[in-house]
């Protein structure tokens, strides 16, 4: 499945993993109805961003940041990690970035910058994993 519609559907389904429909059906929730709602919300988010892109005029700082290549944004994150004392994570990130550019060449991935930009956009969107002692 490689069409945008199918891939978005797969992403919606993925976000429902771990939900107990048996329990929810007791409260009157239907899996199909929720899948439809989820798809509507996904397309709503996608389209609102597209329309915002055409009308939104960012200021010069936001514009400069928007035009910064994703790889450089990753290096900025690495710098922030170092400043906040996470040297090991910063170093690992830089090693992985170098490794990525080597392996991605032979993998045929054409939109590597877009994927890196997505990761930048989602950075810190979930709490870090709990440290176990």
């Amino acid at each position: 499945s490689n069409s945008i519609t199918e891939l978005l559907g797969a992403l919606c389904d993925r976000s429902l993993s771990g939900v107990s429909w048996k329990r929810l059906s007791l409260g009157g929730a239907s899996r199909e109805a929720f899948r439809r709602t989820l798809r509507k919300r996904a397309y709503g988010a996608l389209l609102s961003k597209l329309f915002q892109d055409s009308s939104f005029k960012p200021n010069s700082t936001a514009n400069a940041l928007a035009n910064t290549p994703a790889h450089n944004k990753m290096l900025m994150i690495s710098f922030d990690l170092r400043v906040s004392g996470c040297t090991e994570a910063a170093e690992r990130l830089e090693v992985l970035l170098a490794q990525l550019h080597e392996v991605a060449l032979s993998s045929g991935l054409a939109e590597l910058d877009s994927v890196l930009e997505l990761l930048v956009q989602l950075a810190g969107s979930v709490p870090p994993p709990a440290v176990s002692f």
Partner: protein
Amino acid sequence: MASAANTNMNAVRETMDVLLEISRLLNTGLDMESLSICVRLCEQGINPEALSSVIKELRRASDSLKVSENSTSQG
């Protein structure tokens, strides 16, 4: 021919492994399956900022569903 395909498959797998480790370091919340779908959507030309909005919206929706799941199980 088969060897070239194998080399490419290995490169794709290695690229995905590196991307997943970067993703985990950055706390993006993506697992391998979601990341793989996202990579394919990016390859289809979907704007990454728009895609991140979609993912955040889907998380909000599934979180609210999980809250109602808990309230159903408690009620």
